């Protein structure tokens, strides 16, 4: 389904590019219809929207903010606080996949001042010329960012995006299957104990699924070596009988409902489900856990970026600055339990969140994590590899 949406998104891209390349914010870009196709960095002089962004000053607002975000990804009180402080309104619109957001932004014809794309989507959108170059001088709290989260592979210069929150990909499990004393390794999946073989789920995602196998084999998950990729395919094929399903959407539900014992997935999903089933009398963390394998896993980042559809670029900058504030950044994490890339926020975040290694991995674990980077033309080989495994 997700892939279908992505494909159609691409079709939409092509169709709009052929038809009318200036449907976004006619007021802002009408003077230069070609700017949508040109790289934002070099188009500055002929690009009113970029010029407006470059002229923004800290704390400046130029109208209400149209914020296009994932559902339930921000504390409503933070929105209220921003509205109160700056006397503007925040209009929220929601999406549930990067692809449907891309389709909306690419089509234009709707004003979105601020979006929250995931890492790989930043690369795609920047290459399409859909993002404007951020004006760092208007974002005074940029220094609050943990240096680890600057210069990330999907946006090396930090030109287009500022990290919003981040998380990891690892293994969620039932203690019933692994016991209390086990080695936190990908071998849990790739050399399963017969007692839970057949009760394992892997993500249905070409980069993540192959990435797990590549990490287990000791390779980079951004490899562009066909030989290494083939080895990963063989590894997963070898244990295919013990894989119950490839699942990216309900991997966490299946685990807590007992359909699976060991599941490959995103930390936020697992922790959300464990919290969801915990009650005053029942602590799900006694039965379920999450770990990042010692060989390393994936770190993912959602970011804030200003798309070409923006009209109120200064308000958008001010909002980014507002969320980078130490206390506001902490409020975000205290509300949705994802880790904050804001190092100044640490002292305001609930201790039980910051001490939870499945949210904030230790430094050694973190050192082994890799961000998924765009492999360009090699990307299709990952797709083919996953297809080959599943057939």
């Amino acid at each position, binding site marked *: 389904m997700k892939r279908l949406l992505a494909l159609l998104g691409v079709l939409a891209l092509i169709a709009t590019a052929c038809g009318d390349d200036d*449907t976004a914010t006619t007021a802002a870009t009408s003077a230069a219809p070609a700017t949508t196709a040109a790289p934002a960095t070099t188009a500055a002089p002929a690009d009113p929207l970029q010029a407006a962004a470059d002229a923004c000053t800290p704390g400046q607002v130029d109208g209400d903010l*149209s914020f296009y975000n994932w559902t339930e990804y921000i504390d409503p009180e933070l929105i209220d606080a921003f509205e109160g402080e700056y006397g503007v309104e925040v209009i929220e619109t929601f999406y549930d996949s990067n692809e449907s957001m891309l389709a909306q932004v690419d089509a234009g*014809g709707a004003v979105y001042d601020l979006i929250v794309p995931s890492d790989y989507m930043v690369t795609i959108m920047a290459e399409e010329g859909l993002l404007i170059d951020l004006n760092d001088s208007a974002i005074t709290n940029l220094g609050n960012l943990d240096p680890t989260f600057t210069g990330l592979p999907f946006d090396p210069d930090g030109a287009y995006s500022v990290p919003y929150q981040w998380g990891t990909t690892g293994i969620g499990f039932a203690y019933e299957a692994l016991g209390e004393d086990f080695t936190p390794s990908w071998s849990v999946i790739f050399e399963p104990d017969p007692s839970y073989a057949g009760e394992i789920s892997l993500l249905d995602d070409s980069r993540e699924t192959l990435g797990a196998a590549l990490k287990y084999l000791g390779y980079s998950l951004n490899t562009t070596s066909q030989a290494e990729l083939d080895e990963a395919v063989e590894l997963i094929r070898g244990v295919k009988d013990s894989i119950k399903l490839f699942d990216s959407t309900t991997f966490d539900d299946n685990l807590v409902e007992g359909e699976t014992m060991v599941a490959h997935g995103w930390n936020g999903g697992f922790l959300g489900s464990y*919290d969801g089933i915990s009650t005053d009398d029942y602590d799900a963390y006694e039965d379920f856990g999450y770990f990042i394998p010692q060989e390393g896993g994936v770190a993912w980042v959602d970011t804030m970026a200003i798309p070409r559809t923006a009209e109120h670029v200064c308000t958008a900058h001010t909002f980014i600055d507002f969320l980078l504030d130490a206390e506001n950044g902490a409020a975000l994490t205290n509300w949705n339990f994802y880790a904050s890339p804001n190092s100044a926020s640490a002292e305001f975040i609930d201790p039980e969140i910051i001490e939870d290694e499945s949210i904030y991995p230790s430094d050694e674990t973190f050192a082994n994590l890799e961000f998924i980077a765009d492999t360009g033309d090699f990307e299709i080989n990952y797709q083919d590899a996953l297809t080959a495994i599943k057939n």
Partner: protein
Amino acid sequence: MTTRRAAARSLPGGRRPLVQRVLALNAWAVYAFFYLPIFILMFFSFNAGRFVTIWEGFSLDWYRVMFANEPLMKALRTSVVVAIVSTIVATVLGTAAALALERYRRWLGKRTFDALLYLPVIIPDVTMAVMLLIFFATVDLNRGLNTIILSHVAFNISFVSIVVRARIAQMDATLEEAAADLYASRWQAFRRVTLPLIMPGVLGGALLAFTLSLDDVVITQFVQGPGTSTLPVFVFGLIKRQVTPEINAVSTLMLVASMVLVFGSLLLQRRR
């Protein structure tokens, strides 16, 4: 319903043929398969705990949480506005289309129109969604409530006209001719004879349209504009984050509304 009628027709003493019994059993199995998950979902919306599958006592807490969730309530209001407006427009246009196809025997492009009218019923939602998005972008229409309503009208016209056409086909055309013989003007004949006769079909179509509009997520997700996420779009995003009985409460609310409307629509169509 089939089972009850079949039972009524069968002879006393239970000498029903085996085929009939097997079919009846099958019907019940199908009903159970469809409705059991729904009842379980509704049941757990009244759960006191946060667990979506383990019962911990009755409570209306999740409904309270739901009504206090401002973005969610805003999405609900958007949904209702979209559903009402798009239903009214689609019903008028759909009924007109049905009349044109059933009452007027030959006009230019009728066959093509007839075939194409059902396209929105057949093609996948996501195809229609992308088509509409590209269309709105091409004609430079700013997206928002207007584009959502236009899209819902676009797919609902087909559904309304299917239902209304079935009703018109059952109607005796000589009744209109009789009205004309009695010096009724065309408008009078329509207003006093045709419309009352096809009214159950029109209302049935309208209820179907209302339900479809209230449920649509795929198309709306693509054609929505700033600040106009509908309830299904909001809820669909919610599932990815965390499942609490709040989702059950929202789903129950939507289900009850949809079911009332669907059953209402069925009843109206059956009425003579």
